[in-house]
């Protein structure tokens, strides 16, 4: 019984995290990614070396940034549960 309620609590926290994350991603997509296309295409056509650095930098920054965001979200949700 106790393990069932524990499981349902972790499922709830997962769904809450997913919902909050979806809102963040939605905002990020329309505020940032949507407008990057033209700029990136310009760099791609002009200078491949710059494009390679920018591409790698962008994916690393996003990787680290989203990791911080998801970890922080999990921490906030779990602390509220307790």
């Amino acid at each position, binding site marked *: 019984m106790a393990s069932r309620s524990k499981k349902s609590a972790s499922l709830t926290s997962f769904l809450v995290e997913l919902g909050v994350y979806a809102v963040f991603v939605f905002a*990020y997509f329309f505020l940032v*990614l949507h407008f990057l*296309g033209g700029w*990136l*295409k310009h760099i791609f056509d002009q200078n491949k070396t710059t494009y390679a650095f920018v*591409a*790698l930098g962008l994916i690393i920054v996003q990787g680290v940034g*989203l990791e911080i965001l*998801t970890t922080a979200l999990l921490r906030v949700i779990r602390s509220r549960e307790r």
Partner: protein
Amino acid sequence: MDFLISGTHINPVFLIVIGFIIGICGGFFGVGGSFLAGPALFAFGVPMNFVVGTDLAHIVGKSIVAAKKHRALGNVDIKLGLIMASATIVGVETGAQIIQQLKRHKNVDMVVAIAFIIVLVGISSFIAWESWQTMKMGKKGATKAPVPGKPKRDHSALAYIAKKFQRFHFPPMISLPNSGIKEISLWTILVVAYIGGVFSGFLGGGAGYIRMPALVYILGVPTHVAVGTDLFEVVISASYGTFTHALKGNVDILIALVMHTGAAIGAQIGATLTQYFHGARIRLAFVPLPLLGAGLILYSLMTGHHF
């Protein structure tokens, strides 16, 4: 949405959902997810040279998240990861040069797609067979969930292969205490990593579908350490792969960024799931995924239809 660099039009929601699914797979199985991401991008109409480069870029962002998680769980053998990364980078460049040659001869789509299908079906069949053999052995602990507080034990029906490779004495010999390996030839590790790198540079992604089985069956690394070490190594080698493929005009970074937004959350969930499953079970659950990827490529090749 138009992705100008690769000249494709894809619904970004599809990319985020695909990213989410492969994020879970990546965190859970320790593979980059190219067995699904590559075929899915091809099915969306992305040219194969962009599939390869873009998948590598997307893997970088995702692997950082998953590798950090596995590092915290003590699943990363840093020494092994760094040795492997050096040879993988050379292999990635080899694979990228092969793609350039195919681009010049204008048959990159067909050749890479057929190679993808052969590799995915082969890997899936092999892991299914091996996991089945291991579970049939009925060794205690082979299919049970790990007991908290006790070190994880891992069994494989092909453990004798790893022992044979560890007996191969070709100096310099090194020890990998974090992986429980007393002595192994450096050359064995370098060859395994190089071959993984070629697949990574040629088919995209981290080539975890080659490297993870190689780590477990050839080097004899426990599955949970193989998962974490593979992810750690992929961060370094896929970064190089992204750079070299971007220089060659094979990366649509916007596609990678959109896919990665879904993958970031999926990777967190996948890495946590490895705590509840063990060795042969993880491997057996992996079996249908490469087949799904192979089916997607075959469908796109035969019908010419893109989603």
